């Protein structure tokens, strides 16, 4: 029966993707004279050349981190969706250390990434603390922290770290000792390996440790967790801090490997895409890896389509949101699930 239900879950997932892709196609139908050409680039683009394939892999790195971060908090049924702000603030923290700390090789890079994680955690501290101390809704507070992070970081970067010699609004370039390596001719982000490593560690944490058990128990039934002696507010607090550190680290890795200076003037969107990644992974840290690759594929596919056919790649956001709606819709195909369970019960 378990296998059948898993199969059904897969079917539900595939159906959601298909419906979303179909709606995307309808959009392209209105958006361009040659929709099948555009659609082809959308689906085939990321594997069409080696360069684009590396672009796809690189795109998956921040998504893996932010997806993992949101996985953790969703696993405990907390709705802290501040990963976007934590990512941004983490990137700022990395920049701060990379530019101010003396250039000592190895230590400099390590401190840069550590700084990113710390800044991300610091940003997550506010909603986490407000929630545990005052029971203030973490949903609203984490969103407010996103806006505050955005405005504060832009203010600081543009006023104090701006490289006036550069043509655009960017920070000074990092010293070489704070660079995270990129591999191969097409600059593969070595953060990919860090990301996979962190995913495995967090996965083991969730499924193999006491703290992980407490997180899952809290997500399954908060009251039960409370009455069975789990310190709920303690878990609630530390899950969010840990998630913030992961999201912050994502910002640090992205910036020290890909750009080597602070480049963003608007949110890069990895935090919100992370929500999609976590939902597709059904809050299972291990499944974040395929799920992040999937979303990265769509994102890069849409960008390539945009570059080649001039269609706004934002259409992919529409696809993603339709996928979220359908995948979280528990009742979709629920009748079939019910029937399988009933039939199996009759046999016994």
């Amino acid at each position: 029966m378990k296998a059948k239900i898993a199969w059904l879950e897969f079917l539900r997932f595939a159906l959601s993707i298909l419906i979303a892709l179909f709606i995307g196609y309808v959009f392209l139908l209105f958006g361009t004279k040659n929709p099948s050409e555009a659609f082809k680039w959308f689906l085939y683009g990321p594997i069409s050349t080696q360069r684009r394939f590396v672009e796809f892999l690189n795109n998956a790195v921040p998504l893996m981190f932010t997806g993992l971060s949101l996985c953790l908090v969703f696993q405990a049924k907390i709705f802290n969706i501040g990963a976007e702000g934590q990512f941004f603030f983490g990137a700022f923290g990395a920049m701060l250390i990379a530019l101010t700390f003396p250039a000592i090789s190895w230590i400099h890079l390590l401190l840069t990434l550590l700084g990113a994680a710390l800044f991300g955690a610091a940003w997550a501290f506010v909603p986490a603390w407000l929630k545990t101390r005052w029971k203030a809704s973490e949903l609203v507070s984490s969103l407010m922290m996103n806006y505050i992070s955005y405005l504060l970081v832009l203010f600081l970067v543009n006023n104090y770290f701006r490289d006036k010699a550069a043509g655009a609004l960017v920070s000074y370039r990092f010293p070489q000792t704070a660079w995270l390596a990129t591999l191969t001719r097409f600059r593969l982000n070595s953060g990919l390996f860090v990301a996979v490593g962190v995913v495995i560690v967090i996965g083991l944490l969730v499924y193999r440790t006491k703290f992980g058990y407490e997180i899952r128990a809290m997500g399954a039934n908060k009251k039960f967790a409370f009455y069975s002696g789990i310190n709920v507010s303690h878990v609630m607090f530390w899950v969010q801090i840990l998630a913030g550190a992961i999201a912050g680290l994502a910002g640090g890795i992205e910036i020290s490997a890909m750009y080597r200076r602070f480049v963003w003037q608007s949110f890069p969107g990895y935090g919100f895409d992370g929500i999609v990644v976590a939902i597709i992974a059904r809050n299972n840290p291990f499944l974040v890896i395929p799920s992040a690759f999937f979303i990265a594929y769509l994102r890069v596919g849409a960008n390539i389509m945009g570059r080649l056919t001039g269609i706004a790649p934002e259409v992919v956001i529409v696809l993603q949101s339709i996928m979220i709606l359908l995948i979280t819709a528990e009742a979709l195909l629920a009748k079939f699930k019910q029937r399988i369970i009933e039939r199996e019960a009759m046999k016994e």
Partner: protein
Amino acid sequence: MNIVVSNIVDPAFWYSVLRVSTPLLFAVMAALLSSITGTINIAIEGMMLMSAFWGTIIGAFTRNPWIGLMVGIFSSTILALILAFVHLRLNANLVIAGVAINLLSSGFTVFMLFLLTGEKGTSASLGSQPIPRLDVPLLRDIPFVGKMLNNHNALTYLAIISIFVVDYFIRKTPLGVRMRAVGENPNAAVSVGISVSKMRYLSLILSGIFAGFAGAFLSMGYVSWFARDMTSGRGFIALAAQALGGKSAIFGAFGALLFGIAEAFGFTLQSLRIPSEITNMIPFILTLIVLVIYARLRIKSHSRIQEL
């Protein structure tokens, strides 16, 4: 301190407070109408954005702001229906579905904007039709109040009226009372024959309509174009303002005004050369503070275990 005093006695300051509060007033009503049945509408932000987009686009194409307003409200109501359907019928988590609706609006409006105007930033090239201002004859002649209340956008007056309409609706009409009953205790409501799902559908749809007004005002009154993600957090600020006002439309409106004052005060500070990034932060920081105050008040009235 001087600037604070000169602001308070200046009718122009209060005029601008009312102006910036208008979208928040509508959005707070939207938040209130959904929360009374126990459904928190996270998607107000996205609904506002959708309405702002269609309002200005259709207004520009038909050369008639009122048709634009209608279509704008219709579009946000459709989003409300989708949210209600996936949550109430397909059992999707309300928060996650709400976040999805917000994402959907953000992506959809940019995609369509690019499709229709070839630009991704704003719709300024379309030349839109703003909703007219009203010059009220009697109001004009009252000294201080006239300058403060007269010559506002028609929707601003509607927002003020709607506070009292909503207040009356949820406190006095049978339908409003039934909706509140569903929010207070769904099981008890069922036992006296009230359909919980029908009431929740209705409350989300009403919420969508008010979010539609809020969004349409942004692109056809506050400014006269659509810009990507132009709601910039107002939907969430409205949720916080509504939380401050509890289940009362009047108190909720005061919450909205508080944020309006903060925003208008931010403009004054900008003229003192304080960077806009810092002044723009004021409403968001205020939201955090309000959230804490509200949470403290609530803790006092409930036992800790219940509030887990």
